[in-house]
């Protein structure tokens, strides 16, 4: 069962996405801001991280850079979730070290497709 870390400050988004992913067979753990998210990512072993970009404490871009800098999380797949359908945000996310991005509101099928492309075959 793939282990997913969902870093999202909005309670409803977090609840909704986590429940839908669990229904699809993922093991989901959650962090409410960037700082906690980085701590959890380095402490636990996750197959993929879903990272909201506008986070309190440490924002998504900074958190991604920190994760990429740390050896234990340097290669873990990260998908950025951005609120604005802006190509600029996507570029910034990819620059910071994200593997892919998706825009909110979440189209679950689309997101699942992107996740499938990044998850190691063993985890699926």
């Amino acid at each position, binding site marked *: 069962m793939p282990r997913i870390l969902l870093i999202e400050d909005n309670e409803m988004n977090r609840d909704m996405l986590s429940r839908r992913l669990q229904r699809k067979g993922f093991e989901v753990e959650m962090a409410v801001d960037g700082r906690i998210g980085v701590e959890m990512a380095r402490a636990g072993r996750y197959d993929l991280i879903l990272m909201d970009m506008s986070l309190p404490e440490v924002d998504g871009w900074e958190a991604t850079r920190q994760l990429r800098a740390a050896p234990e999380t340097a290669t873990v797949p990260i998908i950025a979730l951005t609120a604005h359908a802006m190509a600029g945000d996507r570029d910034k996310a990819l620059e910071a070290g994200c593997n892919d991005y998706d825009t909110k*509101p979440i189209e679950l099928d689309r997101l699942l497709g992107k996740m499938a492309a990044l998850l190691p075959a063993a985890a699926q």
Partner: protein
Amino acid sequence: MKRATPKGRARARKPRRPAAASRQEALLRLSTGIAEAESETDVCRAVVVGLYGEALGYDFVAVLLVDQASGDRVLVASEGWKQAPSGLRIRPGQGLSERPLLDGRIHYTPRVTEETRYLPTRNEGSEVDVPILANRELVGVLVVESNRPDAFDDGDLKILAAAANQAGIAIGRARLLRAERARADEQEALRATMADLAGRLDLSTVLTAVLERAVRLLGVSHGELAIYDAAAEELEIVASHNIGRKATTGTRMKLGEGAMGHVARTHEPLLIPSYHAWSGRSPQYAAVDFHAVMVAPLLIGGHLVGAIAFMDRDPARQFGADDLRLLNLFAPQAAIAIENARLFTAAQQQRQYFQELVANNPVAIATLDLAENVVSCNPAFESMYGYTQAEVVGRKLDDLITTEATRQEAMAYTQQALSHQRVKMISQRRRKDGTLVDIEGLGVSVVVDGTPVGAMALYHDITELLKARREAEEASRAKSQFLASVSHELRTPLNAIIGYSELLEEEVEELGVPQLGGDLERIEASGRLLLSLINDILDLSKIEAGKMEIFVEDFPVAPLVKDVTAMVGPLVEKRANRLVVEGAAEAGDLRADRTKLTQMLLNLLSNASKFTENGTITLGVRKNGADRVEFVVRDTGIGMTEEQMGKLFQSFSQAEVSTASRYGGTGLGLAITKKFSELMGGGVTVESVPGAGSTFILTLPVRGS
């Protein structure tokens, strides 16, 4: 008694027969007297006084001269017993003294009473009448009388012939001298007149002066001057001298009418001996009582300027060759003086017109010479920049009203204007007090007769205009900003609504209560519609706020078209339409904003799907030249009228309200598509026939930036 006195005195004083020697001496003295006389009258007096005073025994001596005009003999000088006032006239055909004028000989009448021509006078004795010849012309008669019959002998006749001969020579000389002097005076008067006229440029002054001078020069009592109005083909009397109670000024005459109209047509002077008897007289002059009239056209190189007329109330005044000669000298000069004044007046009026135009113009105007120095400026310039004309004239305009930032630009504009280029600018200039003024400016070169003489700068104060525009733009930006933030705030809860309804749909399936599924689907669909509406509003407000950015990348067209058709598939099938794709495989690569192109194609295809049922929707891709690509979306739907097409791309305007409620949608899709395409350097056009479908063509550059 009174009559007898001179008679008696004469008799008493004179011996009957003076000696021949004393006669010779008397003649010598007479010659001396005549030689000393200068004028005609003095000559006559010298003859008379000499012959009478020399005690030659004559009772009456007189000289009569012929008046050329009337033919009358006029008494100029006399001595003797008869009362004979100077100026006495004897008509032709009367008196003994006419005879020498008829045949040029001396006539001796021993007994006057026996002569048929004899006029009964107090002389009942004898008389000698001697012709006087001056310059080979009979000019008068020397009359010598004695109250005795047979009083003259051969010696007397010789003396009198000699005296008349000398008198004739002296009169001829005096007349030549007078003519010479008169001509010299005339020349001087003419010269003074011309000098005077040439110096005057005010038209009415010149007209009056021309006429007054001419009247004085010719010595006539009346005169009139008319100028020619070429447009009306009429002469208008503009000055009159001494013409009765009723001034004739303002009278207009057609070409050919009256004496002036006649010469205006013939271009030749005209002498009329008696105006009343002249068949060509004008009814406008029926009441006047002139006799002789002289009229001349005023011409410059054959071109008619006006006409001048002279008249005299004296019936004896006739115009002759001398008058005509003077007029011929005067008329061309007068014509030139009038034409000069007329041209000057016209030029002055035009100048004044333009001066008024500049002075009252709300646009600030400054004129510059070729060295860029200010020549003049108008009141609007003074009030706009706070400089007086005196402060700017002679200085460089660009030194006065520019700032550090605009000086170079302004100097370049000035150079352009001076080199015949028309310059238009919107910029800022500096007032005298240092404050700035927003201006719209125009620079044009000023060319006179093909020669550049400088430039003209025109400024319009657009401070208020710009302020209003900035305010309007600010308001528009604030509105867009507000819409953007409202849309964003709306999206968050909406995402939750859509997300949870999807979640619930999945859960009710698992929980086995499918009867709730339909309601949840409706909640989700409404939420998605609301979301797309909000997204469109957000896009539009970003575009209007100028915050919509374009991200270009290189990508192949075919996969994008494939994605788009997949996304729009359910919508196409909903109304039983068929989607056909043409040319995508051959389209190659494109450099553009991929996301926005996807959105535009989705908008066009969903629009086509909405308004088509059981039809075909075609998406074609084709090149338009080397550097443009066209995406053609054609449907077989309801089509549009011209009017509907006109409003098509405006925000929130589906062709009709009824259409919107029937077919759904925000009506923003096409407006966004058009704006996106324009941002990307392309455009959207539409062709449609009501009932026969519509074709939208989206054009983009192949290599956008």
